[in-house]
Each structure stands twice: as structure tokens, then as C-alpha cells.
């Protein structure tokens, strides 16, 4: 007769041990699998690509209520493809600039492993995407695939550049407004100083600073603009046409500046 009770105890122990280990490992695996599957894509939805595909699949029937609606003209598709290539370039450039930094951060332990996995997936997807665009482009016009990304690159950069210029120009109204106010306050202070000068009283603090501002303003800026200003201006303008003449010759795009002057912006 076996002592079932005393046998049950070690069996139960073994069961608990194995069971808990199994639970742990399955939980871990499940979690890992879920994580890998749910890795967020690196980039948001590719709108340009979606539009391009939507155009390709634009059912003639949906627009055919009127007449035998024409299929989407090639030129529209080409434009859409070009937009798609531009967005691709933006993403490829972003990935390229991030790669080195990300590898370094991963090595240092400043970012997690799954970020790297997501990144690699994005890289792979972009490769496929670029290949797809090239083949599409070649389908429209032979050899377009070779230049489409060149064009797209310039379009992207031009776009960025114009946006920046626009941003600068959009500040004009604000600057103008500020300066009008400031000029008024300086003039007011100047007038006050004249008044006070005649009455011989000392101003309070605020007036005093205003007047000092005005005095050094006049002291420096007026001679500067009259003497040195005109001198330099003359020199500079003389130099202007000669300096800017070579610019239009397209073959020599001289190495544009790398300096970014952001001080003024930083103050905003």
C-alpha cells in the first residue's frame, strides 16, 4: 500500500514549480510577440502614397455618373507620383540622418531595442517603396526613374527653403508694429527730456532710462548712418552687382552657407 499522501506532496511541489515556470515563460513569450507585432510604424501614414494609389484605383464608375468619365489622366498620376517621391525622399533623408545617432544611442543603452527594430523595419519598407516608385516612373516615361528622385530632392529642398523664407517675411508686420511703438516711445522720451531739460527737474526712473536710451541712440546711430553708414553702403552696393552676378550662372552653384543664424528667432 503506497502512502498516497506523502507521495502527493512532492508531486504537488513539482507541479507547482513546473507550472509556474511554464506560466512565466509563456507570459514572456506572449508579451514579446505582442510587442513585436504591435510595434508602431516609424512614420505616420504615407498620405501621398495613399492618394496615388487611390487615383490608380479610382473607379471610372464612381465618376461616371455624368459621362463615360475619363480615366485619371497620366499627367495627374505623374504629379501624384512626384509628390509621393518627394515624401519618400523626405523619409529616406530622415532615416539616413537618424541611423547613426540611433546606433550610437542603442550602443550606449539610451534607447531600447525595439526602437531599433522599428527603425530597421522602416528602412526596409522605404527601400521597397523607393524601388516601387522607380518602376512606376519608368512605366510612365522611360528613364524617368533615374531622375525622379533628383527632381523630388530639389522639390523637397525648395519647399523647405521657401517655407523658411515665408516664415521670415511673415514676421515683418510684427516687427514693423513693434518698431513703430518703440520709435514712438523713444520720441516721447526724447520730448520729455527736452521738457524736463527746460524745467530743470530730474525725471523718475522710467523717464530717465528712456532718455538715456534716446541719447545714446542719437549719439551712435546718427553719425553711424550718416558717415560710416553711407561710406559702407556705397562700398557694399558697388560690390553688390559684381558679387551677385555669378549667382545666376547655373553651372556653378557656389557652396551655400552652412551657418544658421537663429539668434533672433531664439529670442521669440
Amino acid at each position: 500500500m503506497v502512502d498516497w499522501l506523502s507521495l502527493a506532496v512532492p508531486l504537488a511541489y513539482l507541479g507547482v514549480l513546473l507550472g509556474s515556470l511554464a506560466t512565466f515563460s509563456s507570459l514572456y513569450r506572449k508579451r514579446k510577440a505582442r510587442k513585436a507585432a504591435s510595434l508602431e510604424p516609424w512614420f505616420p501614414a504615407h498620405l501621398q502614397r495613399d492618394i496615388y494609389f487611390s487615383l490608380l484605383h479610382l473607379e471610372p464608375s464612381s465618376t461616371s455618373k455624368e459621362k463615360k468619365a475619363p480615366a485619371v489622366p497620366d499627367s495627374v498620376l505623374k504629379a501624384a507620383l512626384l509628390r509621393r517621391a518627394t515624401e519618400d525622399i523626405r523619409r529616406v533623408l530622415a532615416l539616413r540622418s537618424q541611423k547613426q545617432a540611433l546606433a550610437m544611442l542603442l550602443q550606449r543603452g539610451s534607447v531600447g531595442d525595439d526602437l531599433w527594430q522599428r527603425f530597421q523595419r522602416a528602412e526596409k519598407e522605404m527601400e521597397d517603396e523607393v524601388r516601387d516608385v522607380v518602376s512606376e516612373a519608368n512605366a510612365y516615361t522611360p528613364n524617368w526613374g533615374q531622375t525622379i528622385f533628383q527632381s523630388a530632392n530639389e522639390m523637397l529642398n525648395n519647399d523647405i527653403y521657401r517655407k523658411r523664407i515665408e516664415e521670415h517675411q511673415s514676421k515683418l508686420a510684427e516687427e514693423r508694429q513693434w518698431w513703430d511703438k518703440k520709435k514712438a516711445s523713444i520720441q516721447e522720451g526724447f520730448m520729455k527730456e527736452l521738457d524736463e531739460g527746460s524745467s530743470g527737474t530730474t525725471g523718475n526712473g522710467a523717464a530717465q532710462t528712456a532718455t538715456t536710451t534716446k541719447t545714446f541712440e542719437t549719439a551712435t546711430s546718427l553719425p553711424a548712418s550718416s558717415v560710416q553708414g553711407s561710406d559702407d553702403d556705397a562700398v557694399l552696393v558697388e560690390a553688390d552687382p559684381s558679387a551677385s552676378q555669378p549667382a545666376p550662372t547655373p553651372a556653378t552653384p557656389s557652396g551655400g552657407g552652412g551657418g544658421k543664424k537663429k539668434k533672433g528667432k531664439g529670442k521669440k
Partner: protein
Amino acid sequence: MSSDYTYDEQGQFFPFFILTLTGLVTLPLTYNLLRPSKELENTAPRIKSDFKPQHADLIDGQKRKRLRKERRIKRIVTVIVGYLVMAWMVYLIIVTARTVQKVYDPYEVLGVSRSADEKAIARHYKRLSLIYHPDKIRPDPAKNETIETLNDRFVELTKAYKALTDEEIRNNYLQYGHPDGKQSFSIGIALPQFIVMEGNGKYVLLVYGVLLGVLLPYIVGKWWYGSQRYTKERVLVASAGNIFREYKDDITDGGIIGALSSGEEFKEMLKGVQAESGLAKLEKRVLADDSFLSAKDRETLKQLDSSSRRKALALLWAYLGRIDLGDASLDAEKYEAAPVALSLTEAFSAISLAFGNLRPILGAFQTSQNLIQAVAPGSSPLLQLPNFTDAVVKSVEGEHAKEHFTVQRFMKIPEDQRRSLTVGAGLLSEKQYTDAVAVARQLPVLDISRAFFKVMGEKFITPSSLVQLVVKARFIPPGCTNVPAVSELDLEDIDPDEDDLDALMGRKPAKNRTSKLANGKKVESKIETIQPPLAHAPYLARDHSPRWHIFLADTKQGKMAVPPFTFTTFDKPLFDEAGKPTFNVQTLKMQFQAPPQVGDFTFALHMLCDSYLGLDHRMEITLHIDDPAKAADVAEEDDISEPDEDSIAGQMHALKTGQPPKKKTRRDSDDSSESDTDGDAAETSDTNTETDVED
């Protein structure tokens, strides 16, 4: 079986066992608990100020909450319990009398030494029997002796004598200390009897099973996930990932705050309903105050989808704008969010350093300044002073000022004028003004007196050598008058006094590329470490010790050239006992590898304090790298006396720099090499256009 187990029935070994076990857990924990007291924040002096900001109680509450978290109450309790258990066990050990089995020892009974041989023993026994034979002596009532005791004693003696005269028994005694020869070992299990008593066995096994089968995997799993959850900067891995993806090459102030709000820590902080509660009210307040939030930042806030992130960002803006939210719980959350964001800033700055673009790096440091001082980006540094409000700042800076006054500039205004600008109706009271100025006079403004490059033990800086950037700087608090001039001697940097050998030794680690010497080398006398006072940050719900970062940047390309070195301590006192600034010249050193080309390299040296606004320092500095051949030539001319050694030195130079030792041709081709570097420059400027396009 000669060995058998005995359970610890008397409970005499059990306390030892428990004592050891508890000790194994408690002692390392104690060390762990006591160690953090060396952290910067706990040892630094403070800036003296009586200023109490609005909601001081809330801030203090958050501070305590954070401290509690940091102090790890659980561990403290564990340690205390551990010590209590240990003390109890020690008490048990002392109280329980140790029952040591006394082994019958005939030598002792006879009173002879163990070295005595048989004859000596016999002689001794004869003598004793003459004295102690019951026939010979009378019982002495004074000694409480009776005839029986006398008899017994003699019987004992005789027994002992018998035992010893037996050859075998005597040998057993001599070898094993026991008449029967070798004894079996008895092994005791230091568990009390009740544990192994019949019927309790299964419970013990159950406990054991739970320990091994459930607790162990649980602890291992927890540790595993825990260690995977945090990055090196002690932020959640997910946060670092989010911030990395938010990073852009041209990200600045507002954008960085936005990026920080993507941290997962906020999600944890604003769990469940907290993400929604008060969000509408909060947003209304933040967006209503139109003084500091730019249109772009507003847009970012409005476009966020996730409500917890939206709330986090709004809270951060409310904190930076010092907006009174009019709701205790919201305000508390506001003060809780700031330290979280501050720790996230470290992750951001690590990321921006990996990218190496200057603007985000500067932005990261400035964001930390903003967060510590609760001053919105682009607002006046004067807000750092106690009691200063926008109205006061406006009065100081003028109505339409585009530029902000730094505290230094404010303190440069003559006293009476300064007072009249700030004290008045709607501005400061006399008392508030004094408080503010008192704090201003204690700000640790580090002023660079001189900065230069050098190579230890060399006169010239050769390509790829290990260069030291030596920064000599003084703390000059704002508003200091009659600051003494810097003595020239202080600005010199003297190499360690040992000769060549040591200098060579000093260069040894150079090849291994260590960059550890951040805090100054050993100058014979002493390496004092003086901490600057804790940052005066009344709104930040956390103590923070200021850190100074020094790095070199290439302005033309907008890139970082040499990554930041961080300084938290200095080698001389900042203030004397009376609290007056000492104007000691502090030495800050950092090492890096020189570029491999010959030529002049101009860098912008940036020095930023992470805790105060307006203390940033920036200067141009040129690194002049000499041709190694030329440097060797000069060395030759210098000491003509030992030409042999010199040529060896020259060869060593050549070896070190990888430059072939053909000096003559080298000099002939100087021109060409120069044009080479020119070509390099042109190349770099070409790459400029590439980078330029991006921003």
C-alpha cells in the same frame, strides 16, 4: 552509519542560523540605504533666501512625495525588521546556556600533563594515593568533606590511573581526545524540532514550493522587466523612443517641451481619470494667458490627440508660465510634472548629443534651465529672482524691450536706480526687493578668465595628440563691485612636477582614449572638492545641484565638435565663511583627441549652467596644431646637449603621430600640405550646403 542527524532540539543553533541569514540580507541593504547620502543634492550648501513662492505648501508636498519615493520606505522597514530579528537572535544566543558535553579526561583528574610518560604517571599516582587514600586522611568538616566524597575521589583517581596505564586507551586519548578512539561527527540541523515534526512536513514543503516555484520566478521576472524598462538616463525606454522620434534637427524651446511631453512617465503619472480631469479648465487657463505661448506652441497643444499627453504638455506650460490654475489638485500635478520633465530632458540631451547638431543641444540645456527656474522659453532671466513678476520685469526692461536683461545686467544698474525701477505700487515692496537682491548676489556666475589648449608635457600640439582644454574661471556673483584682478600665476597651468617619465605615463591612458580627467589632475597638495550651492529653484519640487557643461562647437557647420564635459564640483571654495565670494580661480579641464590635420581650428567654446538662465558663456577659441616634424625640430634646437635622446624623441613623435620621420621632405612639401588642408576646408564647406539644406 557513523554520522547521524540531530535536530536542534534545544534550539541552541537555530539563532545562529537565522542571524546569519538575516545578516546576509540586512547588511547589504543597509549599505545600499546609507550610500546615497553621498549624492550631490544631499551634501551641497544652499543659497540663503526666505522667499516662499505661491503654493509653497504644494511644492513642498511634491518634494516630500518624491523624497519618500527616493528613500524607499520599504527598504528602510526591511532593514529595521532585519536588525530587530538579529538583535533578538543575539539575545537568544546569549540567554541559552550552551550545553557542552564534558568529555571525561583522566589526565585532568590526575593532574598530569599529557606529555607525561607511563612512569611519570605511575609515580604521580603513587604520590597522590599516599595523600588521598581514604585510610590516610580524615574528612575535614571545614571543607565540607565526608568519608564518601573522599572515597569517591580516590576511586576517580584510581580509574584515571587504570585508564592511563592501559596502552591503548592512553593512545586514544592522545590522538582523539577520547578513550574509545575516533568519534563519529554529529551533524545538527539548525531547525527547530516543530518544523520536522510528524504531520508538519507537508506544510514545510508547501512553503518551500511557493518560495522556489512562485516567488523566485516572480522576483527574477520583475527584475528582468525592470532592468529592461529604463534607459541609461533613468527614463522609461518607451519615453526615450518617443523623444527620439520627436527629435528634429531644428527643434528649439517650445518644440523640446512638446517632445518631452511624449514621455511615458506622464502617462503613468496621469493614470486613468486623471488624464481627463480638469483638462478643459487647464487648457483654458494655459491658452488664455497669451503672454508667452507662441502661436506654434498653441497649435501643437491643440493638435495632440492623446489626452494624457495633452494634459502633460498643458501642465508643463502652466508650470513654465507660472500660471495659477486655481485648483489645488491641478496645481499639485503641475509641480509634479516639472521634475519628471527635467529627468526627461536628460534623455533628450543624450539624443541631441548623438545627433551632434548644435541648436538642439543648446536647446536641451536651455530647457533644463527653464524647467528648473520655472521660466518659459524666451522670457526674462530676471524672473529667476524671488518676487519678480512680469510687471516688475517690464518695469526694468522697458515697455517695448525685445531683449531681456540678464541678472548680471540688472545688478549692474546703480543701486538707487535699480531700486526705483523695481520698488513701488504694483511692483515690489522694500522687503521683497532686498530678498531678490540678496539671492541675486549669491548666484554662481562663472566667468571665464582664460581658456587654452595644451598637451601635457609638450610645448606644441601635434596632430591626433591628446589635448587638454584648460578653462580658468572665477565665480563672480552679480552685483559684485571691486572684483580683484586675476593674478597671472593663477592662470598658468603647471604640469605635475615629476619629470618626463610621468608625463609619458600621463600620456599612456591617452592612447587608451580615457577621458576621465574631467575634474582636474592631482596637484601635489590636495584635491579638494567644493560643491557650489544647490540651485535656487523655489518652484521646482526637487533639489538640484547645478552642473556646468563645457563643450566645443563648430559654428560654421552648426555642429558639436567636442562633446560636453560636466562639472559639478570645483577645486577651491566659492565663498568664504562669511558668505563673501572668494573670487578664487577655478581650474576646469577636459581632454579630447586633436584633429589629425595640421592647422588652426576655431571653435566656439560654450559653457552653460543647467540651472540658471542667462549664465551661458560663449567664446571663440583657436586650436593651433603644429606639424609634428616642426615641433620635433624646435625641440632639437631647445636642448642641443643631448642630441641622441632628441632623435629618439623625434622618432617617438613620428611613431606616435604616424608621421613618417622624413623631416626634410616634409618641410619642402609644407606648401602642398597647406593647400591640402585648404582642400579639406573646401570639402567641409561643401558638406555645409548639404546640412544647410535641411534646416
